[in-house]
């Protein structure tokens, strides 16, 4: 079944639609499983014929995976530039696949929590997403998929290096783990560089989630394991879970520290954000990313009150990250001008203003008398 974008866009991927464990800091988790076929050239070095041959071998394998018999599917040649951008914004293809043509395919399951790409960087790459911290269940799910794939296809495996991949440093059991973290506390206290260096020493990397809009706009960062030398997926899973636990704790400490030591500055930021939601008329996407980050922080520190509950507001903010993204907005509003896009984005954001109110501490702030 090919991708019908009109219906596909109505449902949001789990990263953007749900809330999960520890989602005040851990926004979402993702696992990537890769496999390559024996005797076939890796996609980055192969010809269109070779990619087509690989796809012919792997499509029946993908279809045999539970949830993928009826999954939506597209060959990259069938997708327009705009459609590719839409899938990129939804993290349902990688930039590498977005640039590919013949013999390159994407499959998306009904829940939109798992995608399988053929002839991306590797012959087969499966991504499984979840909201909040669900690394363990992701690894379990990917291992089940791996068993099915390994049974049905001639997989390139080397006793010494494990499953062979186009990047030599990524050989091993073919699973990599990612975690999206919201770290405004670290960012506001200029702790990101220090954190990055510390994580590197523990074979983990930290990079901005929306790097194209500047590093600190959204305060969202991706934590991921460096490949092979850091150990098996079980080791990495344990290692990442421990580190994430410490990070969550430290992020909350830093947020409370800012709230206690620099209340005026923080309340100024949140007050301005609230004011802009009430009275703003236009909003660019980077500004929106920053606003969403401040709102998440304010909600966590209970500077804001939400009638429908914290989790529903978090879901709404996550939704907006996607619905107000440039290509999504352009697609749903039938290519508005850049100015109209900003107006539409602001209109969407004003829905948040209707759902929240400032708490008493902020609304009754007193100013020193002259």
């Amino acid at each position, binding site marked *: 079944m090919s991708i019908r974008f009109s219906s596909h866009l109505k449902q949001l991927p789990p990263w953007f639609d749900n809330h999960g464990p520890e989602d005040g800091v851990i926004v979402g988790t993702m696992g990537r499983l890769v496999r390559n076929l024996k005797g076939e050239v890796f996609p*980055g070095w192969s010809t269109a014929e070779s990619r087509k041959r690989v796809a012919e071998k792997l499509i029946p394998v993908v279809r045999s995976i539970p949830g993928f018999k009826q999954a939506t599917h597209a060959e990259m040649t069938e997708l327009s530039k705009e459609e590719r951008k839409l899938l990129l914004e939804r993290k349902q293809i990688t930039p590498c696949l977005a640039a590919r043509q013949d013999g390159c395919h994407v499959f998306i399951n009904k829940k939109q929590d798992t995608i399988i790409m053929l002839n991306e960087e590797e012959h087969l790459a499966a991504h499984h997403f979840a909201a909040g911290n669900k690394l363990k269940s992701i690894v379990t799910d990917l291992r089940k998929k791996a068993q099915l794939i390994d049974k049905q296809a001639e*997989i390139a495996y080397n006793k*010494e*290096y*494990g499953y062979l991949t*186009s990047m030599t440093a990524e*050989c091993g059991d073919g699973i990599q783990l990612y975690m999206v973290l919201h770290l405004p506390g670290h960012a506001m206290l200029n702790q990101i560089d220090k954190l990055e260096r510390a994580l590197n020493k523990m074979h983990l990397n930290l990079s901005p989630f929306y790097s194209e809009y500047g590093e600190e706009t959204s305060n969202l960062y991706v934590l991921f394991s460096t490949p092979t030398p850091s*150990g*098996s997926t079980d080791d990495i899973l344990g290692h990442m879970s421990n580190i994430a636990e410490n990070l969550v704790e430290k992020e909350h400490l830093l947020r409370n520290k800012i709230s206690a030591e620099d209340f005026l500055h923080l309340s100024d930021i949140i007050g301005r954000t609230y004011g802009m939601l009430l009275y703003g008329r236009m909003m660019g996407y980077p500004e929106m990313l920053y606003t969403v980050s401040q709102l998440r922080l304010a909600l966590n520190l209970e500077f804001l009150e939400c009638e429908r509950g914290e989790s529903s507001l978090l879901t709404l903010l996550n939704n907006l990250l996607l619905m107000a993204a440039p290509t999504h907005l352009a697609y749903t509003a039938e290519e508005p001008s850049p100015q109209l896009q900003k107006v539409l984005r602001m209109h969407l954001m004003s829905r948040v203003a209707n759902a929240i109110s400032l708490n008493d501490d902020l609304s009754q702030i007193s100013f020193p008398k002259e």
Partner: protein
Amino acid sequence: MLLTQIVNGQVTDLALCETCARAKGLFDPQSLTFAEKFFPEEFKAKVDKLVRELAGGQGEKKEEKKKTDVLTKCPVCDFPLETYRKTGRMGCPDCYTVFSRELDILAAPGENQGPRPTEEKEDQSRCSLEKQLHEAIAREDYETAAQLRDKLNKLN
């Protein structure tokens, strides 16, 4: 029978089975020591000849293996070694064998190789190895046959 020759600091090791050693005229190790002492020139010439014979006699396979060590392109996919050095990428799974010497940067063996492909796969590879072993014996390629035998033993 193991024979080590050191000429101008260059070490040549030969490992021969009894039958091959006899076929090459090297049937008495003691007499070799004697020959080395009393007829050094003749002994050197004989060992040189033997080394040349073995290098040529074991066919192209050995030569191919030597060439493999210095290959600058993967013969399967034409992927240049230089590109691997620059990017850390390989062209195809066979590049891992062709450029094996370059791969010492990888993790220690067994650290992160994950579960092996299923038992079914092992059965398939066992069948394939057994077939290859019979073929190697049939064409009297005993070196390959020995390697295949060892692989099969490991699988068992």
